[in-house]
């Protein structure tokens, strides 16, 4: 390493900074510079591929972690108090001892952080040392590690390997220059995606002299733009040529790419870490903590005032005002536990426990995909018990998102496909299978015999067998994308088959009959990837369609059923086998991909025989209708929609050579552009998609199992269910009926479409819309865009101040994030919703147990635990200490040894409330599911009301009065000493606190007994041991042999007994009230005690009532 002046180093650093910040980056190959020192490397300014997700370093762990922890206000408060204790005039305890609780809490948290960071470090190291192949001077690919990858390197990835950095694809082993990748690690989508080599570029690492100009790194997974300047002409490349870090290469032997982003890869930029949401309960809790602060200050003021009131009382060495001032701080130190330091830690522990139980529920486990419920947001479990509004998407949420080709209408003629209806209606997989076995040979026979050629019995049996096999693997493996049996099974309509064979024979070799065009369009106009069976993705079927959306797969399979078999797709061509057995290779001139603005996609091909340029477009009906050149009767589409079918329109347009030429110039320009690339591309697409002529189709999306039942239960639970869908109103209404969201006898149901909704959500109408919606039993919004969905959720949430939950099975990230709780259904389509969600479930029906049972439990448990915690902190010590101040001249004396006070909070009374928060079960899951009305308890203010807080504080005050004054009166005027007096107080306090909890605990399991009895035993063992060992250890206090002598005195037991009983006596009113007018929960608990059959009977009666 040669010496360089600091100035030069600084200049270089600045240049690097500028290079990173620039909107466009110029990258060159590293190859010519290999072996040179770092300063000469052209790409040295860009970070290397080594990742570091750890937060701390070994040396700086302690200061950094402390800094992190002091972001929490409570920690600062307690450290402040501990420091205050070091000032002699105000200290209440030995200063060192006062540091213990905060140190314990800080170090526990630090330990947890250190452990997590260490885990991150381990996984980083593993990832950084993963081997990969980098092209080197030796003219071959050398094995290096991921962390060695630099921007400007050539990296080779072989099949089934994970891509180490964002690569610009330059070369693949595939003859068609494509590379298939699976992005499951990024977005969870398991279908294969096709990436193509940058066009117009020969791959030769040594002679790669061009400059790659790419944009600044960003986190958009579906967007990338760059161009290359080998010489003068530019070659543009987009996301279709980018291999993202974290993807797996499939079905391609190897691929070579140029590293454009290392470290700043799209997947890394997308990794934002867990989101932090604050639950409603926690927000309320914080208000109550503020009340505690006020209470504390009031109590301290009361304690600090006496020096003023009694001007010259003995013993005060300072002036009254000064001593009052000191006393105030002394009392704050003494009574500090009133602010529940351990509450926050306990809440976190409780939530971890609750999440453990939620994720371990076998009822929320889906066998088909082998997935459990995932809790991504760790701190809003209790919000699940307070939901008032559920917003649900339709596709993939209520429905399976497994599409079946159901009916079609060609040239104004309807083909109902009656056989398919049968197939779709039969819900049970087993029976479905049998029906198919019974029926298929027959119908297929007719189908294929009408076709008059290629009728091959061997083929049918083979297909039947393969179907069976694919079903089994479909259950066991989660990597199956849209090839479940349903959409592969389409039974052709007889009439339509006849039409096709007639058309085939009549049109001869020209093949331009509308019937043929329709099926050709189905087969061609999509982005379905045909994959061959490879060893890695075990498939017995040798043709496998990998579609990005299930409707595409459904259509391709439909075409296949009619004999139009999609055989292969490359970026430049599509091969389709016609029913006649002839293979046609269409040249693909361009693909105008789907986007949510246009809501359609088009493929421009050149017909191999007629040499015509043909544009096939497919899209949502309303997106197509406005582009039709010839008007078309809406009748059939409406009819489909009423049946709940999703309608798609397929169109065809013949483009003249001249139009194509001029258009393709525009197109090329748009593709090479960096600025406004999307708009330009979209504009060119829109230019072409005009004057279409229509062919139509309808496909069905099956409802998921138990959807109506779940929706019914949610409504009985007092939850408003809204369905927001992009479908047309008729479809939406039909689905509404199917899932019992709408019912015949419904009085008011609101069905509103997107355009109206925009108006309704305008600021001046908002109030009235919300008011109207509130009065409706059900609301259905159709034809709404994702943005509108999130606006609806936001408006309802803000105007009505209610807890909202959004469920989505696809990509409505906005809606999910707008709601208090976002739930993603890891279903068929994209996994973006799941990635953005707080909880991810696999079936809609899981929502029922998640909300009604786990939501209820989590909420009541946590609410009760928090109330109990406030009670405990006020009752235990704080008030006892406070009352004692009236008898020790407000001097801040504690009558309990400080160590025992710490133990009391840390050991003797900490475990029971945590256990209570995790494990208490007020009502069993069966009753909660059977009587959804019980869910209403948590809604609105819920159990944790403002009044509940104050009642429990008052109760604590009462109990502390009892716990202090009964021993006080009993020991009055005797020769009792301070700590002998404190011991029964301490013991009474412990018993009252634990018995109070015992009354609150609704179901005692072994764990409860062990922890409760263990706490009592621990108290006596530890206190006895401490009082036996500690002779002079804690000077102002004197615990030596105190408990021992107390326990030898019968009075101790008598005082403890009566104080505890009197303290808990008011509970009888509670009991009386519950017995006379039982609350729903109490009634439900009575139900729980009945045996199974009796309970069923009861629930039935209750329901009918």
């Amino acid at each position: 390493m040669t010496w360089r002046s600091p100035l030069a180093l600084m200049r270089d650093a600045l240049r690097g900074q500028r290079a990173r910040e620039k909107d466009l980056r110029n990258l060159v190959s590293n190859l010519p510079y290999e072996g040179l020192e770092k300063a000469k490397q052209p790409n040295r300014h860009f970070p290397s591929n080594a990742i570091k997700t750890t937060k701390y370093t070994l040396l700086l762990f302690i200061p950094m972690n402390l800094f992190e922890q002091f972001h929490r206000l409570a920690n600062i408060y307690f450290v402040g108090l501990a420091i205050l204790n070091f000032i002699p005039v105000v200290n209440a305890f030995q200063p060192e001892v006062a540091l213990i609780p905060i140190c314990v809490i800080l170090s526990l948290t630090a330990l947890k952080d250190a452990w997590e960071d260490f885990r991150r470090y381990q996984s980083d190291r593993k990832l950084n040392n993963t081997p990969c192949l980098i092209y080197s001077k030796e003219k071959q690919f050398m094995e290096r590690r991921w962390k060695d990858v630099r921007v400007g390197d050539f990296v080779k990835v072989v099949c089934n390997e994970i891509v180490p950095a964002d690569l610009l694809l330059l070369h693949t082993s595939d003859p068609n220059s494509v590379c298939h990748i699976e992005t499951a690690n990024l977005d969870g989508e398991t279908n294969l995606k096709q990436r193509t080599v940058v066009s117009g570029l020969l791959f030769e690492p040594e002679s790669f002299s061009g400059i790659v100009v790419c944009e600044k790194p960003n986190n958009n997974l579906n967007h990338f733009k760059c161009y290359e300047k080998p010489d003068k002409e530019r070659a543009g490349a987009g996301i279709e040529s980018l291999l993202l870090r974290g993807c797996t290469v499939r079905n391609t032997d190897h691929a070579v790419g140029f590293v454009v982003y290392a470290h700043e890869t799209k997947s890394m930029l997308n990794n934002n870490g867990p989101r932090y949401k604050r639950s409603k309960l926690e927000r309320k809790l914080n208000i109550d903590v503020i009340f505690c602060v006020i209470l504390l200050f009031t109590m301290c003021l009361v304690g600090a005032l006496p020096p003023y009131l009694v001007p010259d009382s003995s013993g005060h060495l300072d002036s009254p005002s000064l001593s009052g001032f000191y006393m105030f701080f002394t009392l704050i130190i003494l009574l500090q536990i009133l602010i529940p330091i351990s509450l926050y830690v306990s809440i976190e522990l409780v939530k971890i426990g609750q999440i453990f139980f939620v994720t371990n529920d076998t009822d929320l486990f889906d066998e088909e995909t082998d997935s459990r419920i995932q809790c991504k947001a760790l701190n809003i479990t209790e919000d699940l018990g307070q939901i008032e509004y559920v917003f649900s998407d339709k596709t993939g949420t209520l429905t399976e998102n497994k599409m079946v080709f159901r009916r079609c209408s060609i040239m104004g003629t309807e083909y109902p496909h009656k056989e398919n209806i049968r197939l779709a209606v039969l819900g049970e997989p087993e029976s479905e299978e049998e029906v198919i076995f019974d029926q298929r040979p027959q119908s297929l026979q007719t189908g294929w015999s009408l076709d008059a050629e290629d009728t091959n019995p061997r083929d049918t049996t083979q297909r039947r067998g393969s179907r069976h096999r694919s079903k089994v693997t479909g259950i066991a493996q989660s990597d199956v994308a849209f090839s479940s049996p349903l959409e592969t099974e389409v039974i052709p309509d007889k009439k339509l088959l006849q039409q096709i064979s007639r058309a085939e024979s009549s049109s001869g070799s020209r093949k331009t009959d509308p019937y043929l065009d329709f099926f050709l369009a189905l087969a061609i106009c999509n982005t379905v990837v045909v994959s061959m069976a490879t060893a890695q993705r075990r498939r017995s079927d040798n043709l496998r369609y990998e579609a990005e959306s299930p409707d595409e797969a459904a259509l391709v399979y439909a075409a296949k059923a009619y004999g139009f078999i999609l055989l292969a797709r490359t970026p430049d061509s599509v091969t389709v086998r016609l029913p006649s057995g002839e293979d046609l290779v269409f040249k693909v001139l361009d693909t105008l991909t789907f986007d949510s603005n246009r809501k359609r996609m088009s493929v421009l091909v050149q017909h191999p025989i007629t040499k015509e340029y043909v544009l096939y477009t497919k899209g949502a009906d309303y997106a197509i209708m406005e582009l039709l050149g010839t008007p078309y009767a809406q009748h059939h589409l409406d009819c489909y929609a009423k049946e709940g079918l999703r309608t798609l329109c397929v169109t065809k347009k013949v483009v003249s050579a001249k139009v194509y030429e001029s258009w393709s110039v525009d197109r090329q320009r748009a593709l090479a552009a960096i600025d406004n690339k999307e708009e330009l591309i979209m504009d060119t697409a829109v230019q072409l998609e005009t004057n279409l002529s229509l062919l139509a189709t309808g496909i069905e999306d099956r409802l998921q199992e138990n959807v109506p039942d779940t929706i019914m239960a949610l409504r009985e639970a007092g939850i408003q269910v809204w369905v927001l869908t992009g479908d047309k109103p008729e479809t939406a209404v039909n689905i509404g009926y199917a899932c019992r969201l709408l019912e015949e006898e419904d009085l008011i149901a609101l069905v509103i479409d997107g355009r109206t909704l925009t108006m309704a959500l305008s600021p001046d109408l908002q109030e009235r819309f919300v008011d109207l919606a509130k009065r409706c039993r059900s609301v259905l919004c159709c034809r709404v865009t994702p943005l509108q969905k999130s606006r609806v959720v936001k408006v309802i949430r803000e105007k009505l101040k209610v807890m909202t939950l959004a469920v989505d099975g696809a990509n409505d990230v906005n809606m999910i994030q707008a709601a208090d709780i976002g739930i993603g259904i890891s279903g068929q389509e994209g996994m973006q919703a799941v990635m953005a969600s707080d909880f991810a479930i696999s079936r809609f029906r899981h929502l029922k147990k998640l909300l009604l049972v786990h939501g209820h439990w989590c909420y009541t448990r946590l609410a009760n635990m928090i109330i109990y915690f406030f009670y405990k902190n006020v009752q235990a010590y704080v008030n006892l200490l406070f009352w004692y101040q009236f008898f020790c001249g407000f001097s801040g004396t504690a009558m309990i040894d400080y160590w025992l006070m710490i133990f009391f909070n840390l050991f003797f009374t900490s475990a029971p409330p945590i256990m209570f928060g995790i494990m208490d079960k007020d009502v069993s899951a069966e009753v909660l599911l059977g009587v959804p009305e019980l869910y209403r308890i948590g809604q609105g203010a819920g159990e944790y009301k403002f009044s509940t807080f104050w009642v429990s504080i008052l109760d604590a005050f009462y109990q502390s009065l009892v716990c202090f004054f009964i021993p006080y009166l009993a020991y009055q005027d005797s020769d009792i000493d301070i700590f002998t007096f404190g011991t029964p107080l301490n013991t009474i306090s412990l018993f009252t606190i634990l018995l109070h909890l015992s009354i609150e605990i609704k179901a005692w399991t072994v764990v409860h007994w062990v922890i409760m009895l263990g706490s009592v035993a621990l108290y006596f063992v530890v206190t006895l041991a401490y009082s036996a060992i500690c002779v002079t250890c804690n000077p102002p206090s004197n615990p030596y042999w105190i408990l021992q002598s107390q326990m030898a005195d019968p009075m101790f037991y008598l005082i403890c007994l009566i104080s505890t009983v009197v303290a808990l006596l008011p509970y009888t009113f509670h009991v009386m009230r519950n017995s006379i007018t039982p609350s729903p929960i109490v009634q439900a608990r009575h139900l729980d005690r009945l045996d199974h059959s009796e309970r069923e009977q009861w629930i039935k009666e209750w329901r009918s009532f």
Partner: protein
Amino acid sequence: MVKQEQELDNRPDNTAFTQQRLPAWQPMLSAGIVIPGFVLIGLAFIGIGIALFVTSRSIQVLEIDYTGVAQDSPCYRCSDPDTKDCMCSMDFSIDTLFKGPVFFYYGLTNYFQNYRRYGASKDANQLSGDLKYFTNPSSDCSPYQYDNDKPIVPCGSIANSMFNDTFKLYQIVNGTRKQVPLDGKGIAWWTDYNVKYRNPSVTPLENAFNGTVKPVFWSRPAYKLDPTDPANNGFINQDFLVWMRRAALPNFRKLYRRITEGDYAEGLPAGNYTLEIAYNYPVLSFDGEKKVVFSNVSWMGGKNEFLGIAYLVIGSLCIVMSIVMLIVYAKFKFPEED
């Protein structure tokens, strides 16, 4: 099938614990449990209450205030803080035998031995006989740490303020005074006397105190606290130990002596008595009062009627409440019988 099971490795464990189905006891506080429970608690409490009350009633207590605030009090003369070495005597009579063993207490009111900074003002190491702290007492003792630059032993406010009135009790028998023997042994806590407080192992004890001074308010140094018994000196002097165990409440009594010997082993017979008081301890400055208390003790300690009454009241309350509940339930019916 077996293969399929194995492949589902995400399946949660189906145990009673993870599925939250542990067998549980679900107590319901219903009338059927509460009413009999209350009756039982009530009866038990009334029983305990009667026992406590009767015991408490059988305890005899005699209190004599000798502060001397009132002008007709024999000790009025002595209550003036300027009077030194003042003696006064209080006469009293006992009607019936005051059963022994009789405990003889002195009592103080409005005296905050539990004041925090007062309580901290001592040196535990010094008191456990560590000679290092004789020459260099803990700063906790301030302002009673040094007197004219000489370390105070025992230092601190508590020791300094030790109660120093002394009492002699005489029975008037046929006009002559017969001294009642007072037993000062074993009046302090056993643990204080044997474990917590230690004299330095220097003989004679006096040598350990070389270079130190006695507390400001004391008339005699610690090693001469009890001239009659050389073993009862230094930090293990019984009166000193009693004083050092701070009272919990501002009105307290502390054991002075026990009457267990000679003719008085059975108690104090009826008759006239004279209490001779060496009046040294000033209490008027803080509105305090001084008294002596004679009491005999039972298993429940000294006389305290509160606890017995409390048990009786709560016991009766439980009974009354159970009756009320019974009436209420009779009207509303027992819900679980539906």
